[in-house]
Structure formats: structure tokens, C-alpha cells
């Protein structure tokens, strides 16, 4: 495996990932459209992936478990997006809205 010297410290990647994750949390909590919430979830998943890959590359390069994990995260995220959008479509067809606060049939 080729080794290159690295200029950027690990904590820069961690900082980027933590800011991205917080923005995603804000989006999930503040938005009321289901598709926009899903987009914020994607941001959070990507923040986690950056973190996994950065730690894998910096701390355990011979194992690169984090890279494999990131591949699985992307796979599951793709499946999740497909399913969630199908659910959103079904909710929209049945109730005429995709706003999560208007879908309150289970609310007492």
C-alpha cells in the first residue's frame, strides 16, 4: 500500500463532520416536509461516513474497516431513501399532504 504524507490534521475532518451532523439534526427537527427531513437525514449519514473514513485512514490504515463500513452506510442509505420516498408517496396519495405535522391520525 502506498503511503503519502498528510498535511491536514485529523481533527479538521472531525470538526467538519460534527458541524455537518449538527446542521442535519437542525434540519430534521425544524423542517415539516417529509422529503426535506429525509434530505437532512442524508446529511447526517454523510457526516458519519466522513468520520468513519477519516478515523480509518488515520488510525488503522491496514484494517480499513471504516472504509468498508462507509460502503455499507451508503448501501443502507440508498435502500432507506427508496423506501422512505415510497412511504412519502403513499402518505401523500392517502392524505393529500407530505407535511409530517399534518399526518396525525395516531395522535390522541
Amino acid at each position: 500500500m502506498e503511503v503519502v504524507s498528510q498535511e491536514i490534521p485529523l481533527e479538521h475532518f472531525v470538526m467538519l463532520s460534527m458541524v455537518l451532523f449538527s446542521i442535519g439534526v437542525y434540519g430534521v427537527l425544524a423542517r415539516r416536509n417529509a422529503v426535506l427531513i429525509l434530505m437532512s437525514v442524508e446529511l447526517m449519514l454523510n457526516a458519519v461516513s466522513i468520520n468513519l473514513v477519516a478515523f480509518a485512514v488515520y488510525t488503522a490504515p491496514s484494517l480499513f474497516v471504516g472504509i468498508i463500513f462507509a460502503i455499507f452506510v451508503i448501501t443502507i442509505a440508498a435502500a432507506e431513501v427508496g423506501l422512505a420516498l415510497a412511504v412519502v408517496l403513499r402518505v401523500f396519495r392517502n392524505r393529500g399532504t407530505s407535511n409530517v405535522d399534518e399526518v396525525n391520525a395516531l395522535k390522541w
Partner: protein
Amino acid sequence: MTQVFFDIMAATIIGGALGVVLIRNVVHAALFLIMSLMGVAGVYILLSVEFLALVQVLIYGGAVAVLIIFALMLTRVGELKQKLDGDQRPLAAVAALTLLGAFATVMYKTTWPRDPGQLTVVPFDTIGTALFNRWAVPFEVASGVLLVALVGAVVLAMQEEGER
């Protein structure tokens, strides 16, 4: 030089993410999401994981972006002017900032290695070999998950008899 590239990518990612959560037009939010995710692909290249960068562009820039824009089109949220944020917006900001503060505290208390050290480039074939040997079972399970999700999505989105 690398640092400059990292800063550009970080600005792209954070700017795109802020666009996703703040902007009032849903289609623009989707475009900002693509921008942010492509920035993440750039970060993967910086981390010398080219395979993940390619996968990121293919899956997020291609499949997920198209899916999301399709869903926006089919649910027609762009047509009518409506509030995209709930009333809990200030609380959400407080929660997100608290989380950020907690992360920052943990980061501040951690001692990071002063020298960035060296970075190992993991070649494609090594990842492939590992994926099909050591991680073969999770790989197969993931393909099963994808199949189930595919069938489930088709069943959910299918128009039932007598519906409209």
C-alpha cells in the same frame, strides 16, 4: 495546497448543508443537497479513498438526487406556497447548537496527535478482496436488504385497484 482544497470542500459541504436546511424552495434545497454531497466526495479524495468518492458521486449524485427530485415532483410541494418549517424551529436551533457544543467540548478535551502523520492509500483491489472475503456475509446481507427495500418500495408505491 491540500489545506486550501480541504477548506474549499468544507465550505462547499457546510454551505450546501445550510442551504438544505434554511432555504424556502424545495427544489433549490435538493440542488444544495447535491452540492453538499459532491463536496463529501471531494473530502473522500482528500482522504485518498478514491473508490468511496466514485461511489458517492454515482449513488448520491445520481440515484439519490434523482429519487428525491422525483419525489418532490410527485408530491407537488413546490407548487403551492407553504411553510416549510414547523413552529418548533427555535427549539430545533437550540437543540442543534447544544449538540454542537457537546461535540466541541469533547473535541476540545481530546488530545489529538500533533503530527498529522502519514496516510495510507488503500487501493481498489484491496477493498474488493476484503469485501468478498472477510466481509462476504455482510455484503450478501446488504444485497438482501437492497432487494427487500426494492420490492417493498414497489409494493408501497403501487396504485391499488379502485384507487383513483
